[in-house]
């Protein structure tokens, strides 16, 4: 297993057990407020939490939090922008240009973030996370409020990542998307993860 989660708890969710293998996408669905985003935040270690998390058998507590987040990259539903130049959202040593091309924003390095459309900004948020070459991707509704072509583009990007061995935890409201992308789908309910079997109906 690439990512193993055992007994993950925060004040509001858990305990949660889940494993994802390399090149695998696991979808998480559930009503608003059921704790899906809190679950991703806890895996990224963004909220205080307890549990046993391992990335390729290496315990999370032995890895500095900032290194952990470079290897387990999360793209939240609402992305934050702290500087206006597109290029400044990428580390200087990472190759931003090829990624920008892939998300349909070639030569955008010197553009202003605030002039991009919502969809373009969303793709940019995914691109800046991919630039760090994470081993696991935590995606919180990556295509919510996006039109058909933008959704296709992002799903294509996800497939490329899966093919190169990245594991994806995908929070989505779109049942068809879960079926297209994921090997299995878990349902989150009141902070607990139901096993995939229950979703069969």
């Amino acid at each position: 297993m690439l990512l193993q989660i055992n007994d993950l708890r925060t004040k509001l969710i858990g305990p949660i057990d889940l494993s994802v293998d390399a090149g695998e996408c696991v979808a998480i669905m559930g009503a608003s407020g059921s704790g899906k985003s809190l679950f991703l935040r806890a895996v990224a270690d963004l909220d205080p939490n307890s549990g046993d998390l391992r990335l390729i058998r290496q315990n999370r507590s032995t890895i500095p939090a900032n290194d952990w987040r470079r290897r387990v990259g999360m793209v939240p539903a609402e992305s934050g922008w702290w500087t206006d130049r597109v290029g400044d959202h990428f580390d200087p040593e990472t190759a931003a240009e090829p990624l920008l091309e892939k998300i349909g924003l070639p030569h955008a390095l010197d553009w202003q973030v605030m002039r991009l459309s919502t969809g373009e900004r969303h793709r940019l948020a995914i691109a800046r996370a991919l630039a760090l070459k994470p081993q696991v991707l935590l995606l919180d509704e990556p295509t919510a409020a996006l039109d058909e072509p933008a959704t296709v583009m992002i799903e294509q990007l996800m497939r490329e990542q899966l093919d190169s061995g990245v594991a994806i935890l995908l929070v989505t409201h779109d049942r068809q998307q879960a079926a297209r992308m994921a090997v299995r789908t878990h349902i989150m309910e009141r902070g607990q993860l139901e096993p995939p079997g229950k979703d069969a109906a």
Partner: protein
Amino acid sequence: MTAYIQLSYVDLAFASVFLILNAVFSLVLKLGLERQLLIASLRMVVQLLMVGLVLKTVFALASPWLTLLVAAVMIGFAGREIWARQERRLDGMWGYSLGATSMMLAGTFVTLFALTTQINPTPWWSPQFALPLFGMVLGNTMTGVSLGLDTLHTTMFRERIAIEAQLLLGRTRWQAVSPVSRRALRSGFTPIINAMAATGVVSLPGMMTGQILSGVDPQEAVKYQLLIMFLIGGATGLGVLGAVFSSIWRLTDHRHRLRLDRLRSDSGL
């Protein structure tokens, strides 16, 4: 040196004529400010008369313990003021103690330094020198610290998504808050920088004016004013730096998380 002209209480009553005139205007123009004007000026009169009495007694008794007690009371009030001037503040005891401690350490350190090396009264803690000096240093540090913390907490809350976006890209907590901390430091430093830049050109500082009115040679008054401004500037800077960075330390944790759960606001939003 020219003679010192003593003021009588009748002189003071006459001087308040224009303030009362303002209250009348407020009544006539229905500005609704007359109550606030009245209460504020009454408060000022009572507070200053009391402080005059207290200082007279403290100076006469010349006790180090009493001097220390007065300084402690000043710190207590100033700390409370820092607490009250923040829209969002740290949870629990931290809300009071972090700002008050930063202000106290910076103010005390700078005042002790000036008392023991430049002013050098005998004894060095002589209340006539120690207390007014400490009051001026503390008052300005208080303003700086409260502005710095208020800006820090408000901006951290407003920019939380941008800060967490940086944390998610593997930045450390100090890197992620640096745009916010810079803004908070600037806002804490601004009043003292403005005061230093404008002083003497736009206005004569109150302390210097007071000294000149009471007959001190203007050049001597200027020297004292410069000393005070250096001390105030130094203490404000140290206090703001200490308060802002220790508050960032409190509002993040060792796993580089943003801990806004340790922040409270009056409105609950």
